[in-house]
Each structure stands twice: as C-alpha cells, then as structure tokens.
C-alpha cells in the first residue's frame, strides 16, 4: 500500500508528472522560439532561453496590485499546472500503461484540457486590470468556440475505438490498445478529426494566428499583465507544460504506439523519447510552422473560424465513423 502511494507520488512529481513535463515543455517553447527566429532570418534566443526566463522571474520582486483579490491572485498560477499534471497521469506514453487508469479517463482528459484555460481566466479576472479583463473575455469566447469541436473530436475517437458491440469507450488505454496495429492517423475517416485537432492547438496554446488572449501589441499580455516575479514564472511554466500535455493527447489519440516492443527499461526509455518526438512533431506542425507564417487574427475572426472549419471537419469525421465507412 505504502509502496503504491509512493510510486504514485513519484509519478505525480517526477515522471511523467511535474518535473518531466516542466523540462520537456520548456524545451518545446525554447525550440519553438529558435525555429520561429530562424524562419524570420534572425539568430534567435538560445534553446534554453525559457529556463533562463524562469530562473530570472523566480528571483524578481513579486508585486500584487491594489484591488486584486489576493487569494485567487496567488492561487491562479497553480490551477493550470495542477490541471495539466493530473491530466498527464491519464495519458499513456509509448505503449506503457498510464499511471492512472479508469473507465472514464477520457472524459477527465476533456475537462482537464479546459481547466488549463480556466487557470488563465482566474488569473486575469482576479488581477483587477482592464487589459486582463479583455483578455479573459477573449479567452472565454475562444474556449467556447473550440471546445465544441474538441468534444466532437473526443466523441469520434471514443466511438471509433469501441469496436463492435459497444457504443463508445471512454477508457484511454482501450483507445490506445485499439490502435496497436491501425493508428487513427492513417485512417481516412479519422483524418478530418485529426486536422481539426491540429487547428485547435494554436488557440489552446495561445500561439499566433490565434494568440488573441495574450496579444502583446494590443492588450499587453492580457491576463498576465499584472503578474510579476515567481507567479509569472509559474504561469509561463504552466503554459509550457500545457503545450506538452495537449500534444501528448493528440499523439495518444491518433498515433500512439512505441518504436520498439514494450518491456524493459531500455525499451521504455526509447519509447518515451519516441513519444516526446511525436508530440514535438505535432507542436512543430500545428504550432511553430503556423505561428511563424501567419499574423494574428481578430477575436471575432478566430471565433468564426473555430465555429466553422474545425467544427465542420470534426462533424464530417463523426458522421463517417457513425456510418461505419
């Protein structure tokens, strides 16, 4: 019993929880910034720049604005981190079982992806700044816009993975096992859903062209404007960890499976590295390339986009799966 508890705590704090996600997430952001810089013909910051920023912010003075609700203001940075760390517990990596498995892990994932956005909303609305309020209202509009297609995508995956007999399966490990020989990525009926998920990533991670929430040039970082010091560091860490979490979910839903057979420490390490590489590939295609080449859209354009293109794509996929094409 005690060993089991210790093992779960180790999962939560070291692997695949907090520490692992923090390092991978910060490197994702660092590589992203470097590649964007190279695409724009700049030299760009070093790859470990997010680590430097994090260390810097940790020693800076911590200011709380007058009029902010102090409790929520200091609690908010943790909401995103806790949400994504717990979410990661349900994501199987490289053919291994996830640390936590339940029959409804799938639904928990769906909600924890939104919890990460709620952390930003709470941060903004507790900091008593008009810019933050604008950012929060934009975040809400975006979440409502893309959550609809996210739910349809999740449903599609659940129904597709149920096989014969059952209507849908909400167990993540069953979904991953179902794809052992036939990843959904290479399934034509699932391709629209995959594309829709990729389109959601920029809005979910606050990257151009849908970085309307943070929009530096119009609402100066939006919900983060009043944050400084260690709280800002935690907010940025949370968004970096979320990048790895969301990309891991895409990998688990559409092309899980390890490079080598599961079992043994060496194979496990190879499979985890393979998983991280695939997650980075998702981030590179949907995040880096898109954000380096497109400018920011207005918030109404973003909402209209999410209520049309990804929604239609995911519904096409759902229809194809329901019709068992």
């Amino acid at each position, binding site marked *: 019993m005690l060993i089991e508890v210790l093992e779960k705590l180790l999962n939560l704090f070291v692997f695949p929880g907090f520490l692992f996600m923090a390092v991978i997430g910060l490197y994702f952001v660092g590589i992203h*910034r470097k590649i964007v*810089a190279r695409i*724009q*013909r*700049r*030299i*760009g*910051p*070093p790859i470990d*720049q997010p*680590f*430097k*920023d994090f*260390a*810097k912010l940790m*020693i*800076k*003075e*911590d*200011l709380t604005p007058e009029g902010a609700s102090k409790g929520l203001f200091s609690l908010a940075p943790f909401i995103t981190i806790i949400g994504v760390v717990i979410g990661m517990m349900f994501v199987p990596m490289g053919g291994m079982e996830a640390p936590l498995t339940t029959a409804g892990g799938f639904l928990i994932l769906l909600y924890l992806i939104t919890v990460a956005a709620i952390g930003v909303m709470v941060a903004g609305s507790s900091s008593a700044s008009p810019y933050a309020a604008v950012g929060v209202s934009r975040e809400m509009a975006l979440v409502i816009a893309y959550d609809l297609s996210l739910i349809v995508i999740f449903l599609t995956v659940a129904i597709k993975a149920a096989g014969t007999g059952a209507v849908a399966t909400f167990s993540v490990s069953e979904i991953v096992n179902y794809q052992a020989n036939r990843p959904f990525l290479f399934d034509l009926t699932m391709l629209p859903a995959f594309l829709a998920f990729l389109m959601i990533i920029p809005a979910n991670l606050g990257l151009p062209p849908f970085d309307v929430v943070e929009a*530096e*040039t119009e609402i*100066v*970082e939006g919900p*983060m*404007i*009043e*944050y*400084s*010091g260690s709280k*800002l560091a935690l907010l940025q860490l949370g968004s970096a960890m979320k990048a790895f979490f969301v990309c891991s979910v895409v990998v688990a839903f559409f092309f899980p499976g390890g490079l080598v057979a599961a079992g043994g420490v060496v194979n496990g390490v190879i499979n985890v590295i393979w998983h991280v590489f695939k997650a980075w590939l998702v981030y590179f295609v949907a995040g880096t390339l898109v954000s380096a080449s497109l400018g920011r859209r207005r918030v109404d354009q973003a909402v209209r986009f999410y209520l049309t293109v990804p929604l239609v794509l995911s519904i096409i996929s759902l229809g194809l799966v329901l019709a068992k094409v």
Partner: protein
Amino acid sequence: MLGVLKKPLRKMIAGSPWVYRMNTGSCNGCDVELATVALCPRYDTSRFGVKLSGSPKHADIVVITGPMTIRCKDAAYRIFSQIPEPKVVMTVGNCPISGNVFQDSYAVDPPISKHFPVDVSVAGCPPSPWAILDGFVKAIEIWEQRVGERLEG
C-alpha cells in the same frame, strides 16, 4: 551547496533581460531608432535573451527616451514604481541627458537622472543603432551585477 550554484545561476539569469520602453515626451526620433532599427530582426537583440515586454511589471531593463515633459512626469513616476526589483535604467538620446534642444523650455524637466537612478546613457540625436546595441550590452553587464547582488541577499 548554494554557493557553488550561485555563479552559473547568475550567468543564467543574466541571459534573460526583458526590455520595457518608456517614452517621456520624446520627439520619436530615438523611438524610431530604438524600436524599428536597434530592436529589429536585423540586429536581433533576442540573441542576448532580450524580449520586448508591454507591461512594466515584466521589465528588467527600462529604456527611457525623451526629456521628461511636465505632463508625463506623474505617469512616469507611477510606471517606474511598478517595475519590480532588480532593474536597470537605460536612457537613449541627448534629451534624457540634458534636455537637448528643449532644455530651456518651461514644459520639460531634464535630466532624467534627477528623477530615476540612470545606469547607462546612450548619447546622440538620435544615436546610431550600433550605439544603442552597445548600450544594451553595457546594461546587460550591469543587470548581471544587480542579479549577483540580489542572489547574495
């Protein structure tokens, strides 16, 4: 244990100076040199870790242009007090040093060093981008010292 870590930590932190620009009544000449020439992709200051921040609460190096007009003095003081410690102050152009062509005007109150503790001054009307970049490098050196002092406690 912590003593050994201090030096690499200081080097690491010194590589992340975020810049905040404050215009205290500049004629925009220096702002054009600063924002569209010195901080542009060609001279890419992001290789030093510089990031332009829009909020004073994220700033480490505050870059001031202009001779400090009477009308913006109050706002400048309020913004300056919102920048968390440790911070480095850098001025760009002749106006913050002496008031330049505006120095005898009733509407300005130069020099900036009368109001804020200035660390680096880049002279010129407007200064060349290379001079501004040199100022950035010097400001980052001072920033590293400040970080060291902060780590010492």
